[in-house]
């Protein structure tokens, strides 16, 4: 990513002070695959600092990591000894049984970890989380003030605020939303659906249950919001939505916490946008208590098909990658909402913190959630364009999901 070298340099400076030979690793092979945003670059660079004479540490950080990590861990021995993943993508590794339980390694070397960093699945610790993310409200305080509006805490308030902003001529399309067909649109539906109290599947089974009252209400709310968005909303991903915000066109939007810190630091952002930039927690919808958002964590895993020595070396290197000392550095501290011990939330992190505190539901770690997400992304566009009713669109989602769940053995 574009910050790669500065990030790596900062991380190295931080680790230089504590560069104990090999992080306690005597020998072994460590090979890390993961996404390439700055926070993960930092973790990677700190892990690489453990390399020594007989310790080989390499990283491969790329946006295509999800296509690579599974085949790269299926061989024996696995090419990658560790994959950095999120709660959505750990599922593919779990489904194919390529990562190992970490309980013994945590007992031996995991002293620095906080309890809530340990991801357990069925009683086994399978991953160590180091950062959190969530979508939450980002708004323009100056525009809301000019219109005499309170900061919305529900989507219903967001709608009425949008109406006022448009009527007063403060903003033509005041609502921003990453509604791009595919993954983004499905994610917005997930938020709204969970906020409406919906549940994607019948309890304890892979049977879909999105075609419900909550589903219809969620879609209707999305449609109502889209009336206040740029007419091209089905082509807007979070990059495009952010660009609209920076240009000063958008007053209210649901945006990723990981992108809040850099939202107005780009070159040439008008001063009123910079001054009016404000963050709040996620909103609720339909009178519910659960925020219409999902919580995400990023963490690391250790491959199953490697020797115990390499697994131990990997664990130690990754532990060094998330050392509590590294967040003392100011640049590193703003890169993410760290779950690491001693982290003090920066101003940009309040949204994600509020999300975690207000009982937002974590993105479901279900083996078949990915199939549902894909089906939602493909089938909801007809409704958003007004070609289908909400019930028809949701029936299509279920049909598409059932077909793929049968193909993959989750339904008979």
């Amino acid at each position, binding site marked *: *990513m574009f910050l790669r070298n500065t990030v790596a340099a900062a991380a190295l400076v931080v680790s230089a002070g504590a560069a104990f030979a090999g992080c306690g690793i005597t020998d072994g092979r460590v090979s890390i695959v993961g996404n390439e945003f700055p926070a993960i670059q930092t973790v990677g660079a700190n892990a690489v600092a453990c390399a020594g004479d007989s310790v080989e540490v390499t990283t491969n950080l790329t946006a295509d990591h999800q296509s690579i990590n599974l085949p790269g861990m299926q061989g024996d021995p696995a090419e990658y000894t560790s994959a950095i993943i999120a709660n959505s993508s750990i599922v593919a590794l779990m489904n194919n049984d390529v990562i190992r339980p970490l309980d013994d390694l945590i007992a031996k070397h995991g002293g620095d970890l906080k309890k809530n960093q340990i991801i357990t699945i069925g009683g086994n610790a399978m991953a160590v989380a180091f950062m959190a993310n969530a979508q939450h409200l980002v708004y323009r305080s100056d525009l809301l003030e000019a219109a005499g509006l309170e900061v919305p805490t529900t989507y219903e308030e967001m709608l009425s605020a949008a109406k006022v902003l448009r009527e007063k001529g403060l903003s033509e399309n005041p609502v921003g939303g990453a509604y791009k067909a595919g993954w983004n649109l499905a994610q917005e539906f997930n938020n709204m659906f969970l906020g409406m109290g919906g549940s994607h599947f019948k309890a304890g089974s892979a049977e879909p249950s999105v075609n419900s009252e909550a589903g219809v209400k969620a879609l209707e709310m999305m449609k109502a919001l889209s009336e206040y968005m740029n007419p091209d909303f089905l082509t807007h991903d979070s990059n495009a939505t952010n660009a609209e915000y920076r240009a000063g066109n958008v007053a209210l939007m649901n945006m990723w916490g990981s*992108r809040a810190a850099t939202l107005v630091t780009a070159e040439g952002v008008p001063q009123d946008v910079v001054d009016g930039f404000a963050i709040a927690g996620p909103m609720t919808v339909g009178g519910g208590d659960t925020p219409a958002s999902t919580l995400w964590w990023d963490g690391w895993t250790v491959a199953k098909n490697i020797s115990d020595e390499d697994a131990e070396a990997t664990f130690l290197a990754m532990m060094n990658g998330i050392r509590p000392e590294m967040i003392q550095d100011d640049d590193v501290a703003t890169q993410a909402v760290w779950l690491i011990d001693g982290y003090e939330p920066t101003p940009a992190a309040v949204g994600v913190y509020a999300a975690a505190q207000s009982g937002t539901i974590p993105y479901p770690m279900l083996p078949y959630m990915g199939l549902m997400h894909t089906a939602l992304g493909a089938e909801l566009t007809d409704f958003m364009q007004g070609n289908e009713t909400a019930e028809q669109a949701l029936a299509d989602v279920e049909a598409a999901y059932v077909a793929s769940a049968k193909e993959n053995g989750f339904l008979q």
Partner: protein
Amino acid sequence: MASKAQRKPLTLQLALVAFLIVWLIAAAFPFLWTLWGSFKVELDFFSINDWTNALTGDRTEQTYGRPFTGAGYYGAWIQEEFWRATINTFIVCFFVVCTSLTIGTLGAYALSRSGHNYVFWLLIIALIFRAMPPITLVSGYLPVFFDWNIWGYLPTAIIALVAINQPFTLWMLHSFFMKIPKDLDESAKVDGCTQFQAFWHVIIPVMWPGVITTGLFSFLLAYNDFAVTALVLSESNRTMIPEIAAFLGTTQTEGNVMFAVAAVVSATVPLFILVMFFQRQIVSGLTAGAVKG
């Protein structure tokens, strides 16, 4: 030709010129716009408020005090070390072109000089092979490449690209070889040459323009490839196109579009030089072959 052009009626001539101008604008305008915009900040390049900002550089002036900035180029080349990707691209392109031309000319020559029915079927099978979507091919490669420990290296990507482009190379070269009279190598064989000697000493020199043209198309395919290079190369061995894609960012993370724009403009420069240098060959190459099928 010049004398014939003068004989054209004026209206026809005007229509031709007008058509050419419209086409040239359509072909070159997006690129020139990008070239101009690459010296601006992102908010000007994607000038959401007023499209004329892209021309005047309003926000650029506010940030840098002047309407142009080299920040995109500095970021891509110095900060992100885009030159590494450039070197990798040239290694990949060089070896892809050499390898695919070597094995392609041999194969296409054989196809053109054999009258058996299986030749037709081999050509058809090659064509059907080309119908396979590259992304499916690549997802099939991954487990095997990891298993054999050859994933991530430049030679792996080179061989995969050569193989994927073979059907096109074979068809193109085959049509060139069909154009070269068979008497040429027959008489060389009568003089005591083996088939290979005839191919090497008699046919290849005549074929040179055709080989260059096919090489250029192979070069372009390798140069612009994304499907193979993005998934088969490791981060440190990345070529230009996946590197540019990485500049664009993802859903949850910020990218830097201006680095990508500057990189795209830079990536086009060597192609310009190449096309300017070889344009005569492209044309004479295609002229020599393909014409009579």
